């Protein structure tokens, strides 16, 4: 076992600290070329990652970059800088530690390029930018180690793909580079190791002791939850009691809108005026930082939050985590639970609050999964090609390159290990000429091949534009919200542009826990004023909606097969029994569809258990097929477990409707016109560099007429349907908002075993669906009808209808 030498040993002994076993192991295996540490939250991962660097650098290191630390959060990089500098100073180590993010000043950045610190703390985007400079080989000369923090989180997005490509580049620049990944508990460490590995070399895995089982249960709430919805207002008194009984509580929500509504209701009932704050990704940064600072000082008793607090700062005094709404995903639940009691080897305490009747069942299934340490997760798809296109452009910025060499370098990155040369060449062609079937403008190619075979930018000045648009985070469609004042009022946060566009003056909505009234849009900023209303008119302003994972859905289906459910509250047991009597309970290897008349309309309820996004897509595809079959569907609503469709004709034969080949066909043809597909396209086109968000000199201002990416999408679908960007868009439709992969998975699981039950009235399971929000009217002529009606009304109101 590796022991620390002075000054480290003296420093630890003086404080009565001892190293955790996995921290020792990390020191012992400091020479590994690639190593993944999986440790529970609060296990001292970051120190484990840095110790080998501090030991290697010692008291008087030679100048030059030694270790690069990558974190998904700017704030985390800054925090680590502070937390690392102090002990380094106290141990008398003469080590320069600096961070470099989008917030770092221009002069500081220039100095860092000329004279890099020993330890540089940065983000994937700032690293990609550094590799784009011509002097990248000089900046990174001598680099020994890369530490990737929160690797599990980075692996879940395109930022991770971009980072792995950048690391492949660094491998070429700095042979012998060692990489270390730090991850919270994940379901499949070997998969994460493959993602991190410098292929074909493997990445070793070090599993830390997972620690004691958490103290996790349902929160005791007197009132039964409502049949539908996600507000959990019924639990407010019980949540306040729990907050009172603990030092600091984190109250997690699945969406920002739900967090806002809950926070608002919490304050209406907060008679003791307990200091409670709110924190989510749409709030203004200054406001978030105030909440974080108050948390660190221990002045807040609770924070209502979303995924924005899944990562980051260690708050040792959090002693309770409350999850409002079904957790949807066991892995994320476990990581959230770990936020309570950030002490190694102490059990975390967490309570679940189902927001509606179905979530009671889902929460129970999730509790069992946590106890069985049965984590879920979708396997990672291959590295996305839009990110590769951006990488090729970044590589071109740093100087001429050889296509063969770049291909082998790219294929060393985990996500791209299986990339074919043909696909790589398609991406290169896209970067060079646009890759269109019509070769109209090849002389204006972006990249050109020189006589010596190397590729370079045709116009070196275009490097500036490429550098300005580095990154894979899609926040382009957010607009700022601020209070209306004479000279720009207080910024409150951001809302999605589509939400902003739907606002009319006088509309009220919630942001940062207060109700505001929409006044107008000025220079792409939403101006609002405080409003005294007790109930906002609109509450949804975007943010991610998670779908229940496959594994958790399976657990629920299995649970439904039990003869009785003694672990569930009485009202849930009655509900399940009633469903079994009046209809049937859904089964794991079969697909239950109920068909029944209700309220003068015909209904069909499809219990696919495929998750919200896939059930939504299923609704779009099925209603389109029903329209073709003359069943006259009028609309549908989707939840994580079912899609309810209503229309004029009864469904009597479901088999042709659910034929997977026809559904796939619908995805390829009809669904291509859907707004969700256009949104995926916009993301891909921006990342791949077809659309530039930032232009030198001017930020997009309201006066400038900008063309919508929808036009480009429509044009490509019409004239160049096999274009690379449309291929990327279709690939993305398999996951994320369209989630067609889950529909395929459902079809495979069911394998034609479809039970269509004709009932004479609505079933106990289908009834709550009628109360769900987010009903989708069937499009087609609908939008034109809506437009016609609204314009006539407006004309009449303005007295212009006689014109």
């Amino acid at each position: 076992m590796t022991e620390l030498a002075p000054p480290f040993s003296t420093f630890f002994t003086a404080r009565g600290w001892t190293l955790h076993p996995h921290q020792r192991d990390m020191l012992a295996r400091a020479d590994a070329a690639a190593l993944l540490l999986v440790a529970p939250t609060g296990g001292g991962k970051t120190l484990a990652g840095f110790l080998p660097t501090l030991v290697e650098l010692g008291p008087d290191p030679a100048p030059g970059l030694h270790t690069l630390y990558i974190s998904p959060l700017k704030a985390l990089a800054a925090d680590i800088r502070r937390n690392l500098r102090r002990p380094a100073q106290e141990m008398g180590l003469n080590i320069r530690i600096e961070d470099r993010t989008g917030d770092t000043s221009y002069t500081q950045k220039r100095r860092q390029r000329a004279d890099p610190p020993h330890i540089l703390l940065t983000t994937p985007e700032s690293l990609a930018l550094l590799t784009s400079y011509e002097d990248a080989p000089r900046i990174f000369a001598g680099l020994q180690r890369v530490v990737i923090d929160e690797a599990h989180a980075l692996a879940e997005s395109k930022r991770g793909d971009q980072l792995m490509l950048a690391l492949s580049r660094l491998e070429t620049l700095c042979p012998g580079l060692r990489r270390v990944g730090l991850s919270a508990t994940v379901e499949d460490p070997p998969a994460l190791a493959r993602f991190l590995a410098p292929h074909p070399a493997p990445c070793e895995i070090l599993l830390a002791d997972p620690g004691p089982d958490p103290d996790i249960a349902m929160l005791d709430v007197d009132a039964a939850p409502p049949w539908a919805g996600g507000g959990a207002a019924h639990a407010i008194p019980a949540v306040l009691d729990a907050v009172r009984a603990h030092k600091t509580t984190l109250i997690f929500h699945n969406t920002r809108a739900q967090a806002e509504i809950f926070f608002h209701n919490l304050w209406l009932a907060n008679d003791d005026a307990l200091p409670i704050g709110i924190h989510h990704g749409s709030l203004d940064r200054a406001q978030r930082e105030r909440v974080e600072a108050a948390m660190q000082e221990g002045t807040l008793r609770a924070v209502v939050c979303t995924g924005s607090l899944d990562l980051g700062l260690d708050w040792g005094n959090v002693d309770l985590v409350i999850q409002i709404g079904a957790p949807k995903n066991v892995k994320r639940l476990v990581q959230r639970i770990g936020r309570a009691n950030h002490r190694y080897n102490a059990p975390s305490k967490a309570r679940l609050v189902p927001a509606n009747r179905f979530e009671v069942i889902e929460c129970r299934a999730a509790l069992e999964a946590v106890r069985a340490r049965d984590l879920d997760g979708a396997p990672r798809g291959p590295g996305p090609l839009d990110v590769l296109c951006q990488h090729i452009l970044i590589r071109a910025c740093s100087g001429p390159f050889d296509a063969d060499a770049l291909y082998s370098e790219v294929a060393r990155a985990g996500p791209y290990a299986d990339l074919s040369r043909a696909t790589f060449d398609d991406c290169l062609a896209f970067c060079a000429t646009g890759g269109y079937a019509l070769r109209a403008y090849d002389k204006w190619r972006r990249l050109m091949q020189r006589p010596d075979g190397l590729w370079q930018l045709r116009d070196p000045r275009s490097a500036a534009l490429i550098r300005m648009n580095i990154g894979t985070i899609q926040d382009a469609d957010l607009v700022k919200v601020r209070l209306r004042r004479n000279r720009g009022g207080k910024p409150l946060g951001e809302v999605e542009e589509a939400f902003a566009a739907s606002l009319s003056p006088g509309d009220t909505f919630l942001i940062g826990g207060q109700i505001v009234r929409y006044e107008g849009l000025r220079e792409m900023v939403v101006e609002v004023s405080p409003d005294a209303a007790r109930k906002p008119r609109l509450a949804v302003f975007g943010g991610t909606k998670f779908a229940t994972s496959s594994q958790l859905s399976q657990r629920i289906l299995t649970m439904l097969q039990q003869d009785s459910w003694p672990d569930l509250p009485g009202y849930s047991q009655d509900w399940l029994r009633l469903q079994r009597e009046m209809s049937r309970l859904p089964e794991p290897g079969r697909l239950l569809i109920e068909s029944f008349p209700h309220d003068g309309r015909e209904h069909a309820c499809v219990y696919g258990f495929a998750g919200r996004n896939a059930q939504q897509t299923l609704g779009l595809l099925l209603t389109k097929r029903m329209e073709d079959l003359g069943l006259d569907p009028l609309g549908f609503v989707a939840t994580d477990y079912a899609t309810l469709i209503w229309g004029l004709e009864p469904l009597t034969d479901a088999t042709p409707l659910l034929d997977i080949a026809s559904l796939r066909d619908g995805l390829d043809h009809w669904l291509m016109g859907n707004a969700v597909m256009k949104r995926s396209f916009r993301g891909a086109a921006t990342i791949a560099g077809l659309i530039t968000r930032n232009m030198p000199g001017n930020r997009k201002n309201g006066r400038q007429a900008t063309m919508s990416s929808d036009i480009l999408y429509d044009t490509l679908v019409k004239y160049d349907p096999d274009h690379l960007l449309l291929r990327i868009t279709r690939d993305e439709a398999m996951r994320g908002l369209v989630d067609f992969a889950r529909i395929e998975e459902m079809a495979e699981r069911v394998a034609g075993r479809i039970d269509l039950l004709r009932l004479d009235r609505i079933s106990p399971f289908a009834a709550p669906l009628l109360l769900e929000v987010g009903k989708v009217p069937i499009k087609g002529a609908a939008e034109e009808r809506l437009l016609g009606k609204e314009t006539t009304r407006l004309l009449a109101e303005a007295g212009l209808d006689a014109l």
Partner: protein
Amino acid sequence: MRSDPCLPERASDLLQFPRRPAKEHCMNGHAFTLAGTDLIALASGALYWPAQDVLCVSDLHLGKAARRGRLGQATLPPYETRDTLARLGAVLGHTAPRTVICLGDSFDDPEAARELSDPDAETLRALQNGRRWIWIEGNHDPGPLGPAGEHMPNLAIGALRFTHNATPQGSGEISGHYHPKATVRSKGRAMSRPAFLIDATRVILPAFGTYTGGLRCSDPVLARLMSPDAIAVLTGARALCLPMGRA
């Protein structure tokens, strides 16, 4: 008799019959009167003047993809010229005007006009065949350009004046330049379409080109140019009109 009275083979056929009041005009468009002249704002985004058999379009921005490529940016899908000309061809097929007036910014820049690909140039020649074709200058395409047709800074016919950019004092003025679009909000949804802006003294046409963005008609520049009782006519499947101030 025509089979479909709403789609005359030649719009000028209408002139052979006693003219009905403009409002009842059944072409897919919004009929209105400007400076005593009856005009139709077509749902396609073109403006038709039945009495003179004139069709007017604005801001075609042909060759925009090529221009972006020349500037060192990624080339946009190079199909917009083909698409714009195809849509223009469809409108010409329906209306069969004797005269076409392009209100400027017909080309994204002078080089785009020179560089028109052979098939696109051929399509354009076919559209021009047998009719008078007038290119009004725009800020993107000042001065005479290569393609056939008459080039002029602006043009007056009767009480109407055709120009690229609206002037504050203009009257009977037909212009483009701003790419106006209007938004209708209903039940939490916002629907935006390119739109004509019309008041007693002027019409501002929407951009006809495929690769064109839009300027909200609530923008102060447009609000200053148009009178408070101006209307917006949405393009798309139907020419719907609404008060401009509400869009």
